[in-house]
């Protein structure tokens, strides 16, 4: 396969796909040994400045219309569900601090989290249960979903706006101590167990019980 044919093939595959595709998924569809990365790079360059752009979202590649032409897409636009300030702030805290517990979210905002806030974010598939913190009480932790990255056009969690600066300034510490090691959301190395389905059901129950007081 010549580089030209390869680029055409990658172009066609990405165009036809209903969702973003990873380089590995593309490679799986192509003859062995081809340089998909190279093809993606030259394809991205080819589309630079066009009405359609090749974007990386969540480490996957997808053609999307150029952001500056959004105003034309009147028919395609879906009025996004408006999130409340509380929900947006909660979402941001989860995104920048994940995996993060409910108590930690509340401590950052200095106010209790109403049941509805997490529900709305769950319902919109922006957050998910990530696991349980290995601390007393084994609290569940929250993180963001792939939908979150797709919704906000983020190549990865490391590309959250300002995340590097905030981390450098220690602003993403959940504990105040200065020499505290900061968890990197993309590597998620805080010790915790993956949430099992049984765990989640348990959580729902516990919350119901707790909040139905």
């Amino acid at each position, binding site marked *: 396969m010549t580089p030209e044919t390869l680029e055409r093939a990658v172009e066609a*595959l990405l165009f036809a796909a209903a*969702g973003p595709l990873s380089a590995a998924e593309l490679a799986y569809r192509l003859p062995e040994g081809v340089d998909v990365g190279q093809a993606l790079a030259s394809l991205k360059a080819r589309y630079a400045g066009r009405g359609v752009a090749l974007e990386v979202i969540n480490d996957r590649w*997808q053609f999307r219309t150029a*952001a500056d032409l959004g105003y034309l897409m009147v028919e*395609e636009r*879906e009025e996004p569900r408006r999130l*409340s300030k509380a929900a947006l702030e909660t979402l941001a805290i989860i995104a920048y601090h994940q995996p993060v517990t409910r108590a930690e979210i509340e401590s950052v905002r*200095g106010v209790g989290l109403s049941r509805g806030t997490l529900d709305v974010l769950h319902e919109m598939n922006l957050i998910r249960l990530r696991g349980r913190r290995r601390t007393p009480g084994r609290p569940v932790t929250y993180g963001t979903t792939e939908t979150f990255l797709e919704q906000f056009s983020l190549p990865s969690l490391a590309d959250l706006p300002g995340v590097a600066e905030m981390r450098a300034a220690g602003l993403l510490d959940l504990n105040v101590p200065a020499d505290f090691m900061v968890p990197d959301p993309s590597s998620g190395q805080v010790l915790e167990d993956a949430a099992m389905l049984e765990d989640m059901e348990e959580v729902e129950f516990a919350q119901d019980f707790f909040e139905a007081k």
Partner: protein
Amino acid sequence: MSRERAAPSGLDHDVRQSRLDFNGSTPDTPEDIAPEEALVLQLDSYEGPLHVLLALARSQKVDLLKISITRLAEQYLTFIQEARKLRFSLAADYLVMASWLAYLKSRLLLPRTERKQGNEPAPEDLAAALAFRLKKLEAMRKSVESLTERPQLKRDVFARGDPEARLIIPSSRIEANVFDLMSAYVTQRRRETERHYDPTRRIEAYSLEDARDHLRSQLPSLSSWTALDDVAPQPRGGVGPKRISYLASTLSASLELTKEGQLQLQQLATFDTLYMRKRTPLMPIAEVKPQ
């Protein structure tokens, strides 16, 4: 504080918050709220005392980490007073914050020499921690802005509207988790064991007599609480009674020995491990009551 028009403050706050959660990011301005309650609306958009503090702190126009906490405390207390003048029922956490700030302010103003009191953290540390929390909240607020300014799918950017309905990759995900894998494995291993069933072999039960004898012989070593599992004999290599029969007969025997006053049993909860130990013959049996 006037309570004539307000529900209990905590409830009041809850209600307001849940309304906020669903009503959009712009501060609500419903027409049915009287003008003198404007501050209520303002509080609504603040959401919590920390948010109020953040808004007040910004007015000092310095880096939040260098903020004057005593001045901030004054600003906050004034704010709360205004709110109360307008007969607005404040949620409890606003008042808690007010009293805490008043306390912190007074400690910050105390002469250094008189400060050391028990294990209380130094007021400077408390002030620094508060400044840090404000800075952190501000950072999150800013990131909300920068997140929502990003091109959003189906608002600013659009994917192919008419994908050719042929997904490239057959889904590689499978609908099974480790638990399924584990149980599939155990099921088969059990079936494998059962297949070795020999119809000519009589199913042996562990006789109650044997169990009693066994337990009596074990008695001297049962000076401390021992689990039933460890007391019952283990089956040997497929011959003889099954494990469950060993357990059942040992349990029966232990009940008999308990009745005879030679053994004590205890179980902390239903289905929990059953422990047994030799009853110490220090007291005449008749006088011993269960503890």
